[in-house]
């Protein structure tokens, strides 16, 4: 049995792995104590007169306190890392990607020359993620239909895309290479092959590719695939008053509030 995690190629997400190994050590200790204890008792306390014992308050207090302390400590430790990962802490200079999931494709919108999503010079690639190495990438997630989940195992990234909401995540690739983006949430019959290629490129070759592509896109000057409002929000439904429902992130907290 291999209890190690696969390589973590994201800068700043080592804390996930560290927490994992801390828990691994804690649980391994508990596991060995309990299982060895049970096996020992099964072997030791056979064919004898059983003691008439109803309990022991001291022992119970000890084995209540120890797990309680360990769990509370783990909670505090994890909470700090969690807010770093999920909080709105993407660096300001992060490269921004608009990702629209749909059955069963990832539509990746690049902001184009103006570095701004939702403008006419955006360009959109199907199942094709290209990002620079050593630079934070901030991902805005939309979905056109059902819930999908943006899962980059080697970057320790997972975030659901929820209809009617804009969810966000960010990461920074520390190594170049080719990877795969997976969908982690059952999204229908094509769920199993809803993957995209992810190319982490050296900064210079990324910018060469990006500038060429952005120039082409600017020439086409089409409207953007990406919209700030998630697709299929109530406003686009005919027959409903304009103020019906609120598009603003569907009312849940982690969505984007403009």
């Amino acid at each position: 049995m291999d209890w190690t995690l696969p390589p973590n190629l994201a800068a700043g997400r080592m804390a996930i792995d560290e927490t994992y190994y801390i828990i691994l050590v804690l649980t391994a200790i508990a596991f060995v104590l309990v299982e060895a204890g049970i096996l020992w008792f099964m072997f030791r306390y056979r064919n004898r007169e059983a003691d008439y014992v109803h309990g022991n308050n001291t022992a119970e207090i000890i084995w209540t306190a120890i797990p309680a302390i360990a769990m509370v400590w783990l909670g505090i430790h994890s909470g700090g890392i969690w807010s770093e990962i999920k909080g709105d802490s993407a660096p300001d200079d992060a490269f921004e990607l608009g990702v629209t999931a749909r059955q069963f494709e990832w539509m990746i919108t690049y902001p184009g020359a103006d570095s701004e999503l939702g403008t006419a010079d955006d360009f959109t690639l199907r199942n094709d993620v290209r990002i620079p190495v050593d630079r934070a990438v901030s991902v805005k997630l939309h979905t056109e239909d059902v819930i999908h989940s943006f899962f980059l195992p080697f970057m320790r990234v997972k975030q659901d895309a929820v209809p009617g909401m804009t969810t966000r995540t960010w990461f920074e690739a520390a190594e170049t290479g080719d990877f795969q983006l997976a969908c982690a949430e059952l999204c229908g019959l094509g769920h199993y092959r809803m993957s995209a290629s992810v190319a982490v490129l050296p900064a210079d070759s990324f910018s060469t590719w990006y500038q060429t592509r952005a120039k082409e896109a600017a020439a086409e000057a089409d409207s953007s695939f990406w919209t700030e409002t998630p697709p299929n929000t109530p406003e686009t439904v005919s027959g409903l008053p304009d103020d019906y429902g609120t598009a603003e992130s569907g009312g849940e907290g982690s969505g984007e509030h403009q």
Partner: protein
Amino acid sequence: MATVTTEAAGTPVTDVEHEQSFLRKYVFSTDHKVIGVQFLITSLLFLLFGGLLALLIRWQIAAPGEPIPLIGGLFPEAMAPSGIMLPEFYNSLVTMHGTFMVFFAIMPLLVGVFANFLIPLQIGARDMAFPRLNMASFWLAFAAGLIMLAGFLVEGGAAGAGWTSYAPLSANPEYTGVSLGQQLWCVSLVVLGLSSIAGSVNYITTVINNRAEGMTWFRLPLSVWSLFITAILALLALPILSGAVIMLLFDQTLGTQFFLQSGGGQPLLWQHLFWFFGHPEVYILILPAMGIASEVIANGSRKPIFGYKSMVFAMVAISFLGFIVWGHHMFQSGMNPTLGTSFMISTLVIAVPSAIKTFNWMGTMWRGNIQLRTSNLFGIGFVMLFVIGGLSGIYMASTPVDVYIHDTYYIVAHIHYVLFGGSLFAIFAGIYYWFPKMFGRMMSETVGKIHFALTFVFFNLAFLPMHEVGLGGMMRRIYDASNYQYLQDMQGLNEFISWSALGLFLVGLIFAGNFIYGMLWGEEAEANPWNANTLEWQTPSPAKHGNWVTLPTVYHGAYEYSHPEVSDKDWLAQNERPEVVTPYEGEPEGAGSTDVAPAGAG
């Protein structure tokens, strides 16, 4: 309770043995024991069916796109043309495996079987407080099971949005191609909800009102405590599911948009509602198992349960905390991350009462006189495997680690350690332990031990490697992992898991054989083959209609094993005369005995 007389307490003794027609006695019976056995047989069949679904799933994972061997040709084109499983059929299998195992196998095996069979017998009552409601509860559950099965017969196939049926995938047929199947799923769960609510009301009432004279709250066996707490959980949680499922059904059929964002609905609402039910449900599935394990381990160690009251309070704590941890299923769902932190804390805290229970079971074994009977082996196996399932839960509880392992096979491994290694092992323990009381015959101990050993081995071979597959990043509910470069190394392990799962399934057939043989031709059982203290063993095996000739009076707690003042035997029945020993002083005299209203038992 002291004022209760035999006459007031229920059916006159003379009526107990009257003749009943076959239909009345075995089919539309109001006898809690018969209903318990009805639940047992139907749930075991559903367990078998769920196992078959699992084998089909494992076939596809081990040999993606290869025709299903032997039975492949039996499937219609819409499921598996030429025996090659289609992705939508795979999704249906995954969905129905989860649904059948959770709702129609484990839950009725624990609650339907043991609550029905044990509560009246263990508290010294003649039957449930509402016997007809009890019968209705079984037949509703049975109907719900058939409705769920019918999903495989309708156009579009069975529900395929996962057993959690996340909206909007489940709410709009265009997304899956499944419309009728998903609606049947909803209807079935609504019917099952009615069954469960009816059952819970009955169990709660019975435990509160129908306890025998002297059966104070803290003399109740832990099995009754666990079933009582479970019934409260079910009564509070199931209506949430019913409501959510009815809303989902309306979204599918009436054009409402509760969970569809296009009309202003909120997909995350479904997750909140489902898990607000779903997490208490997890404890519905484990608390009775803990109760059963406490019974068989105390009996199998010939020693009082260690820390009886903390066992009770731990269960109460678990059931309370169980209602405020549902968000840990939704850390990556787009829910506010700040909420994530608070759900993480409550989730980590719930590990503490579980730890207390584990250590108390160990404390019970410590310095005992351990009998390695099949029931006790399964009970000890339950503790050993539940510990793994409990510890692996800590990984998901920690939000940062959950980022990586959420929706991977690590979760699949975890849930199987809890529900198979935990709940199902306890169910086996319970069946081996109470079989003599149910059928008046014994199952084979030798075959039972072989069944235990092989189940333990194959279970671990099947589910331990799943942790590794999950850590490797393999997603759940993936029809064919070969599309992912980084998962190709996992294929060998996946095949190994599939073979082990097949082994595990075949071992289950040993149990089936032992069960059927024992039922028909097993050795006749004595009234109290395990020298147990609780009341059900103080009446003949099998117990007659009405349970008792005269209602018992209780003088002791349920776990007075190896009492030093009792000579020549290591047990002390709860209804043995009090002058035999001085009562255990940790048990406050009169606690719970005055607050119980005298009530009829029939």
